[in-house]
């Protein structure tokens, strides 16, 4: 089952990896990302962040959607990480079983506005999130599991 779907521009890093996998009792992490699959150096550093006892699978967005829909991930307590809200939207468009999205962090850029300490979104991001929320997907902002859940609806 999918225990968490998270947007984090850093994908997987120590503190986050450990806290969330422990909190969700996850035994498998899926990094759904088109750029990383071709980047050996980045893959190596991501694998370092993998907690012991947890599998780490890295797949393109399309292959991730296929895998989830095929049922092959059902036997895991799965934690999915994507890099951006755009990727999250694509993933959720393809996998209707994702009912909740955690926003962890996205980088600031010239066309973004800051909606919380670590979240910076473009207008397109806001539109994507609104559409997801209209579909009944819970969108919440939280860096670590023990932080207070902030409903994104109030901030967009």
């Amino acid at each position, binding site marked *: 089952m999918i225990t968490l779907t998270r947007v984090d521009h850093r994908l997987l890093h*120590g503190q986050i990896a450990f806290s969330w996998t422990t909190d969700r009792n996850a035994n498998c992490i899926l990094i759904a990302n088109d750029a990383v699959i071709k980047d050996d150096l980045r*893959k190596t550093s991501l694998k370092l962040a993998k907690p012991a006892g947890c599998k780490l699978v890295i797949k393109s967005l399309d292959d991730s959607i296929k895998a989830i829909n095929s049922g*092959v991930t059902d036997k895991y307590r799965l934690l999915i990480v994507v890099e951006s809200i755009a990727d999250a939207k694509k993933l959720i468009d393809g996998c209707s079983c994702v009912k909740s999205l955690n926003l962890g962090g996205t980088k600031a850029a010239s066309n973004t506005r800051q909606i919380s300490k670590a979240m910076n979104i473009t207008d397109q991001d806001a539109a994507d999130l609104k559409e997801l929320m209209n579909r009944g997907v819970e969108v919440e902002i939280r860096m670590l599991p023990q932080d207070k859940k902030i409903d994104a609806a109030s901030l967009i």
Partner: protein
Amino acid sequence: MTEIILASHGSLSKGLLNTLSMIVGNPGDHVRAYSLNPGENPRDFLNELELEVTRSENQYIIMTDIQGGSVHTALSELIQYPNVALFSGMNLPMALEVLTRSQNGIDESEFESLIDSSRMGIGLLHHTLTASADEEF
């Protein structure tokens, strides 16, 4: 309830607790750090802790900086009490494991695997190492 004590010469223990808190949030009152400062006597802490340990039904997991060091040596007198376990060479992986498992108390049979986890946390990355194989579902 498991009481967790990090004990070291100087501030390693306090530093480790600080780092631990960054990762798992405030661990709560049952995790304490003890620092032996120059001029202080570790037996003072030993005596304090002994009083507590003998009056409590809680499990006490103590992690120290180094075997053979005066902190570890002083506290090693506590292992006569069945509710105490003393680990040395504490590192962050060890502290995380202990904290995670302490929710339900740690059985003696788990102590070895706890040490294994701490050891596995020590690794090497070097530019000559080749990328490992990718995992699949």
